[in-house]
């Protein structure tokens, strides 16, 4: 049953070089509303955490295979990455000691941390990492996310036990950000030698928990990794996880999920719906963790490749014709601040331009008249040389939560007043991708998770309009602007952080001012949990919660 939230977020690391100068100045923390430090009392060891996921059950627990957000969510418990982000959102080495890049940016050397063992006893070393990368790049693995994240790697060489040398086809300055994503997590090379079926069922990593069993269509059982070694000491605690085990259940129905949390059957639920969050706000025993995903903001993309949106005026008119603010306020109960940026608010380089996105029917009207859509038909829709101003809007019932669908409906209603028709088609995921591949859309909302601003080149470079064999492409607004491409190019390769920031800002300006996208809010990633659960809030670079520090009060 797929009424639940995103289950197929893609991430496609972009090209071009930059040295490890990724220590970013102003970072917004990954975790917001819930503060981990305030949980009083001495941690108790033991207990089983039951986690209820609203996502569809992953088809494979190894995020190398395929690679979507649900996989990342569960894998974050038993797999670890070379890099990660700290509580301040700062990119820090994790399984890697550190990393350097040659001046030409074509050779990256990664130092692997020593003394860490996979849960099957295999030692973590350069060769192991090499095996992982090879695994990711091997077509047989059918990795879509990791495969593209490492796309720029030309060859690898484990110089010694702890040194891995990567030769790149072209410089890639987002490589370390890519390393911080669970889809590129490091698994035991021994385990990887098994058949894919086996590895999918029980991937082996270095995380605080390990996969004990997976009852398909029911639950994944994780148990504490007794020999866990924390790669980098953090504030909270060292040693092994407090929890004995985690039971990872799948409860697609939002209402059921929340009811289960209330009934105390589960301690954590993800994909919490706005109304539930609002309701939980009144309940003292339920706490809320809001962890917006990195990468792109949740936005509507305007297909500029064909009429009517090949006319910038019409795009602008549309954006003024819909009243996003009012809808978000009423539908999201204040859980989702409106966004005015192409990037997630957790992205340090996010550039926001509120002034462009006001609801102004009059202005919309003028623009449309100017664009020649001045006549109206019997139903009050605008027409231009016989054709109605009608926008096709395929909506994936599995990627857009009910609140979002309602938001679209309200946009539909307000747009009608300006004489714009919006045809919303609710589709299952397959059909939805089908329509995109057929370019049979004017509006679309496709979540996109990725660490770092390089997501912009995924979403807006003309290269991304070229479909993959499956017909999938990332640039749904289909911007084909050489100037923009050039900017993205240099933004991805400049060594100067300031310049990088400036260039990416320019990129975002161009995109926003070109009215290619209508930002809505950050990619919502809300968790509700029982107050019995202490020290919840730590998340990975992609905002998936980790439960190493978490303990269950009795």
């Amino acid at each position: 049953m797929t009424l639940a939230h995103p289950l197929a977020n893609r991430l496609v690391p972009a090209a071009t070089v930059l040295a490890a100068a990724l220590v970013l100045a102003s970072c917004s923390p990954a975790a917001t509303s819930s503060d981990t430090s305030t949980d009083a009392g001495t941690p108790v060891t033991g207990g089983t955490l039951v986690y209820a996921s609203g996502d569809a059950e992953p088809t494979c627990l190894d995020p190398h295979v395929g690679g979507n957000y649900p996989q990342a969510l569960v894998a974050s418990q038993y797999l670890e990455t070379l890099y990660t982000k700290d509580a301040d959102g700062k990119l820090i080495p994790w399984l890697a000691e550190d990393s350097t890049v040659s001046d030409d940016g074509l050779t990256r050397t990664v130092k692997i941390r020593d003394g860490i063992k996979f849960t099957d006893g295999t030692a973590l070393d350069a060769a192991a990492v090499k095996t992982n990368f090879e695994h990711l790049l091997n077509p047989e693995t059918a990795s879509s996310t990791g495969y593209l994240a490492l796309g720029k790697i030309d060859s690898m060489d484990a110089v010694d036990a702890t040194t891995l040398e990567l030769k790149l086809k072209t410089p890639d300055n987002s490589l370390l950000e890519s390393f911080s994503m669970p889809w590129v997590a490091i698994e035991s090379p021994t385990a990887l030698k098994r058949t894919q079926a086996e590895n999918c069922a029980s991937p082996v990593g270095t995380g605080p928990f390990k996969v004990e069993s997976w009852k398909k269509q029911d639950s994944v059982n994780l148990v504490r990794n007794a020999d866990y070694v924390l790669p980098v000491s953090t504030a909270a605690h060292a040693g092994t996880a407090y929890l004995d085990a985690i039971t990872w259940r799948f409860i697609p129905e939002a209402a059921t999920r929340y009811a289960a949390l209330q009934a105390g059957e589960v301690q954590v639920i993800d994909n919490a719906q706005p109304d539930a969050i609002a309701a939980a706000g009144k309940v003292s025993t339920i706490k809320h963790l809001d962890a917006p995903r990195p990468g792109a903001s949740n936005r509507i993309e305007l297909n500029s490749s064909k009429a009517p949106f090949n006319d910038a005026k019409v795009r602008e008119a549309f954006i003024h014709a819909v009243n996003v603010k009012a809808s978000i306020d009423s539908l999201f109960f204040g859980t989702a601040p409106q966004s005015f940026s192409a990037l997630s608010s957790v992205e340090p380089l996010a550039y926001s331009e509120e002034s462009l996105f006001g609801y102004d029917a009059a202005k919309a009207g003028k623009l449309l008249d100017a664009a020649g859509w001045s006549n109206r038909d019997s139903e009050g829709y605008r027409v231009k040389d016989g054709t109605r101003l009608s926008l096709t809007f395929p909506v994936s019932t599995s990627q857009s939560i009910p609140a979002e669908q309602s938001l679209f409906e309200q946009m539909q209603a307000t747009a009608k007043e300006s004489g714009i028709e919006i045809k919303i088609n609710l589709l299952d995921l397959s059909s939805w991708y089908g329509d995109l591949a057929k370019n049979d859309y004017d509006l679309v909302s496709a979540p996109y998770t990725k660490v770092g601003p390089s997501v912009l080149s995924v979403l807006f470079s003309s290269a991304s309009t070229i479909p993959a064999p499956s017909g999938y492409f990332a640039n749904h607004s289909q911007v084909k602007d050489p100037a923009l491409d050039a900017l993205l190019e240099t933004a991805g390769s400049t060594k100067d952080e300031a310049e990088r920031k400036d260039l990416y800002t320019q990129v975002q300006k161009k995109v926003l001012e070109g009215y290619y996208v209508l930002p809505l809010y950050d990619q919502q990633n809300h968790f509700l949990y029982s107050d019995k659960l202490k020290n919840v809030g730590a998340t990975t670079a992609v905002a998936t919660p980790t439960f190493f520090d978490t303990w269950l009060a009795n």
Partner: protein
Amino acid sequence: MSASAAATNRSHGSFGASVRWLLRKLGGGIFVLWAVATAIFFGIRMIPGDPAEAILGGPGSQASPEALAAARAQYGLDLPLHVQYFGQLWRLATGNMGTSYSLKIPVTDVLRELVPSTLILAVLALLLAWAMALVLAVLSTRSGGLGTALASGLEIVSAAVPHFWLASVLIMVFSTALGWLPPVSTNTPAGLVLPVITLALPLAGFLGQVMRDTMEEAQRSAFALSARARGESETGVLLRHSLRHAALPGIALSGWALGSLLSGAVVVESIFARPGLGRSLLSAVTTRDIPLVTGVALLSAASYVVIMALSDIAERLVDPRISAP
């Protein structure tokens, strides 16, 4: 054909007849399975979308051409259609349902996992529905006009309630508001209550309607009169005569009931987050998991065939008037 003639048949058509009957049922069953397999095979292939993608982590995957090719080769999707078809039939004939695209494990294993939980659900629901229907029927016949009106009203309404709505309401009341029963269904007694009720209620509505009709007929019948004339009490008439007659249409409907239960299971298992055939059927269709869809379809078809045969036998046991099979 007159009843006495029928009688003589049955007494004659003893062993030979039952063997013939069995063979006929068997043949029919095999035909149905073949047809279902064929229908699904071609039906699903008409659905837009490349199965190879379904194999590679579902829709929208940016699987590389190599990966797609590899997958096609691995699952024999590159072969000409007729080859695939007959290959498929042969595999099915040899009890091999292939490997689920989405779960990456043999379909037979998936089914083995799921059948029990759905079976428990369906059987309990069927029993409950039967019980409710009978109770309603009895109450209404015993308590004259008003009772009848009430019962039939109850039946008609419950037959008109959509599963998913009922489920949501039950959760709201018994889990959220009262906190008596878990919203997530497990195979514990408490965990089964809500889903079973959800499935049973509408079914009971239908069964109740037909059962009460026959029961009232029986109550009015000449044999009921002679029973009363024998000094039989009303309860006696009900238990010894009417109930039996009321059971007949229920039995006859059980094949249909199975189908509706399975359809209901799709919704119920999803809402109560209960692993089962219905739920995986839904996901299988949405993810274009051809082997799994085929598996579930075949399974349900097979069980339909079996149920029909069983209800056939049951009917004949209860009602000798039905001529020999």
